[in-house]
């Protein structure tokens, strides 16, 4: 799976534009088929780590790959979005072969990140992704691309190097680079705090959390459509994956101690970025800010320290990967026609582009979290988890969802309904076959995930239960810490004891 895109990337470099497109599409489709095969063969309820490859190299550094259910789902997300990205890149005219090579390289690295079972290998994949993404934004981006590419690169690098030092310390302390071993290793409580903060610096930037999110709107707006899709769809998930794979299981105690920090930042993020999104004139920027808000839901869900929160966060991540990717594609579709992302230039698109308006509405609703779409399942589970932890956080996070409905529907109204203000916008043709091929599969999966989330939750269940068990030791203290600064001590406990009734009531 790793080799296919890599070989294809090299092949693309040495071929012409048309051939490069074909090679890239073929390679990503092959990977999608491989991914499907992987899923089909994945033994739900079997061993935690499956499909392991292990070649010991030097100094304890090993080429060790393997996946659990969480990684499987994220790999599926990556391989699913890649062919769509390639299709979405038809509007790229200059230096096509290099562009395709960069994308395929990206795919290799993304799968590598999710499959790596060696700390250093993970870091190498994690960081190496910066180079192709830097080039993608910098070469094929919009007007402000150079500023955006610098900002993207330096922000993420700064976060990651601190993580590197923490990793070195861990390797030194535990004497191994093996991730599963480290996940069960108990680091001293003092050290956990520093390590957690160092990892947090990296993942918070990647995620991104407020206040280090500012690279994201710039990068999104300036990146080409497919670049935005990959950024929103997969790269942001690396942050969440990092929390699940490293911060929580490796430093449970510190995670509990710092949960208040995560909650505080996430609460600010949900409300603040939603308000910012409300006043955006640029469609891509609006969706970028909505990503920050959604990711904040993910972080509170993760740090809720219970099964619902974790499952919910995973589903929000998968769903957000699909939905925000699809929304960027939708923006890309009309951008290709009119070459502007300004919301005011559009209006009344449902008249001349009814099919487009239909799909756009589906994705808007999924982003809002309408029942029946993937967004609902994730947000509902995540909020349930948070509610068990702290009702205040749940309240604020929930208000973010209402605000989310506000800005997304406002966007949709301005773009799709109303009068047709501009003749050129009114004359745009509806979706072409290629665009259908891009959007329809995503729509299908979004609905599938919304109606029957079990097929996505089942592979992850055992892993999340294991993680939950690992966190169990730290959880009570997490509550105590939380309530110390929170006047709702009683409520929290109440919430826990009335867990079942809260569940039923919400239904």
């Amino acid at each position, binding site marked *: 799976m790793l080799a296919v895109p890599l070989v294809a990337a090299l092949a693309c470099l040495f071929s012409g534009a048309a051939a490069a497109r074909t090679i890239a599409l073929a390679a990503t489709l092959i990977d999608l088929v491989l991914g499907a095969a992987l899923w089909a063969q994945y033994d739900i309820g079997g061993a935690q780590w499956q499909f392991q490859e292990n070649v010991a190299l*030097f100094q304890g550094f090993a080429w060790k790959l393997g996946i659990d259910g969480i990684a499987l789902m994220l790999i599926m997300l990556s391989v699913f979005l890649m062919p769509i990205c390639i299709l979405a890149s038809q509007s790229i005219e200059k230096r096509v072969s290099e562009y395709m090579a960069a994308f395929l390289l990206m795919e290799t690295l993304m799968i590598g990140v999710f499959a790596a079972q060696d700390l250093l290998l993970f870091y190498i994949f994690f960081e190496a992704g910066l180079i192709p993404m830097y*080039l993608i934004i910098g*070469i094929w981006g919009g007007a402000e691309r150079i500023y955006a590419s610098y900002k993207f690169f330096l922000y993420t690098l700064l976060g990651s*190097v*601190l993580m590197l*030092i923490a990793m*070195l310390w861990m390797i030194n302390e535990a004497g191994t680079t093996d991730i599963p071993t480290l996940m069960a290793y108990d680091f001293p409580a003092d050290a956990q705090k520093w390590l957690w903060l160092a990892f947090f610096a990296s993942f918070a930037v990647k995620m991104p959390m407020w206040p280090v999110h500012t690279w994201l709107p710039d990068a999104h707006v300036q990146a080409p459509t497919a670049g935005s899709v990959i950024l929103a769809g997969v790269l942001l998930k690396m942050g969440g994956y990092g929390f699940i794979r490293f911060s929580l299981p490796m430093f449970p105690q510190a995670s509990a101690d710092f949960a208040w920090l995560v909650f505080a930042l996430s609460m600010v993020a949900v409300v603040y970025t939603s308000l910012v999104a409300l006043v955006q004139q640029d469609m891509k920027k609006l969706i970028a800010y909505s990503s920050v808000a959604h990711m904040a839901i993910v972080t509170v869900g993760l740090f809720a320290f219970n099964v619902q929160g974790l499952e919910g966060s995973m589903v929000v991540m998968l769903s957000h990967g699909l939905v925000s990717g699809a929304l960027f594609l939708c923006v890309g579709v009309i951008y290709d026609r009119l070459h502007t992302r300004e919301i005011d230039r559009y209006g009344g698109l449902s008249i001349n582009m009814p099919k487009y308006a239909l799909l756009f509405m589906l994705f808007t609703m999924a982003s809002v979290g309408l029942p029946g779409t993937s967004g609902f399942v994730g947000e509902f589970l995540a909020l349930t988890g948070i509610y068990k932890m702290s009702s205040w956080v749940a309240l604020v996070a929930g208000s973010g969802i209402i605000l989310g409905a506000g800005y997304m529907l406002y966007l949709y109204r301005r773009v799709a309904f109303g009068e047709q203000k501009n003749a050129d916008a009114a004359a745009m043709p509806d979706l072409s076959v290629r665009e259908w091929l891009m959007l329809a599969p995503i729509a299908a999966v979004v609905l599938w995930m919304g109606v029957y989330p079990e097929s996505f939750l089942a592979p992850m269940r055992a892993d999340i239960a294991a993680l939950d068990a690992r966190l169990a030791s730290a959880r009570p203290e997490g509550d105590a810490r939380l309530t110390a600064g929170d006047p709702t001590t009683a409520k929290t406990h109440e919430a826990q004891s009335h867990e079942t009734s809260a569940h039923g009531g919400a239904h």
Partner: protein
Amino acid sequence: MDWLQSLRLAAPELLFTIAGLAILLVSAWANGKTAARLATWAVVAVLAAGAALTAPVLFSGAKGPETLAFGGLFAADAFAAAAKLLIYAAAGASLLVAPAFFERFRAMRAEYPVLVLFAVLGMSMMVSATNLLTLYIGLELNSLAAYVLAAFLKTDDRSAEAGLKYFVLGSLASGILLFGMSLTYGFTGTTDFAGIAAAFKDGLPAGAAFALVFVLAGLAFKISAVPFHMWTPDVYEGAPTPVTTFFASAPKVAALALTMIVTLKAFGTQAPAWQPIVIFAALASVFWGALGAIGQTNIKRLLAYSSINNVGFLLIGLATATPAGASAMLIYLAIYVAMTIGGFVAVLMLKDSDGNPVENIADFAGLSRERKVLAASLAVVMFSLAGIPPLLGFWGKLVVFQAAVQAGMFWVAVLGVLGSVVGAFYYLKVVKVMYFDEPAGKALGKSDWVHQAILALCVLFLSPLGYLVVKCLTALSDLAVAALMTAA
């Protein structure tokens, strides 16, 4: 220990001396381009022979008293061998790239390879030194050859200026070093490293701390660590590019290896006394090198600051004063040599359509469309210098920081990585100019096949394929460090 044994141990140095004198004599009569080319190839062959003589020493991990020659003045142990191999390789590469450059200025003369050979001889003695006197002789032999090399383009003002500047400042540094050495001798009564270590076993007298500071200051000049770095950008910019390639690689290796010998061997018993100094120099170099490079418009000056920056990272390894740190330094050095040579060779290959060298970074604009392979190679070198995985430069930084973390120097490591983020900015700038800007149509000229071959080798080593040799590199540097640290 008889003389034959001593001569056998110093075989590479003897070979260089004889060959150097012979080629000098021959070239005094045989003038012209062909003779110069032949002399270059002859010197490369001599260097290869020297490497062949040295390699077994490293592979066998030679250490202990049987490596000492000439009554304990000279040691041919595995550590010296490791440094020598790097020096020979770097010098060979900078010789091979020279003819194509100098011939354009009609300045290719046979003296060039001969001077390089004598400089290498000096460096070879430096890294084999077990005595302050051997050290000084080696250092001066190297420096004198280097001063002349810097001014090798006689008709070029910048080259002459670089040579003069290097000479004046270099002599000053040698003086400081010599003063420190004489103070050391005054306090210990010996110039032998082992003797110095034994004399300072029970503590460092206040006066001897001065000696230490002077010695370190002199060495810091030679490795161009902050605050003794001022000469570097000027000399690197002014000197002819093949000479700069040489300066940035071989003498750096020699001077750093020498610094390791002096600190870890002679002052090895007094690590707490010099560690703060080295930590300061390391962090100052990392940050000054990174900040100073940002404003540069000339690629050679930028690479000069980059070398200051890299010396900072190397010194972090030294500051740990542990075998792991020293071993990490050797690994980093090997990778650094490849990165520097790759970088400067790529600069050599940048020529305008008339064949004149292009050194202005702004003129690289759009290089990725005019000369794809060259731009990609330079990008690999730049990303590698910035320490971005999966390129090998990352591994070098990783081992150094790992050693620092193992030694408990947590804050040094954190500051070091922050410095590397600052540094990443200017490397990115070069990539940006090459890839993002519209073509300027300046650097169009063809390049020599020798340059292409050397650059390809460097880039292959730095690419992820380089990880295949990391295992053997690690084993060798561990062997070398074992020889250095047990002898202390």
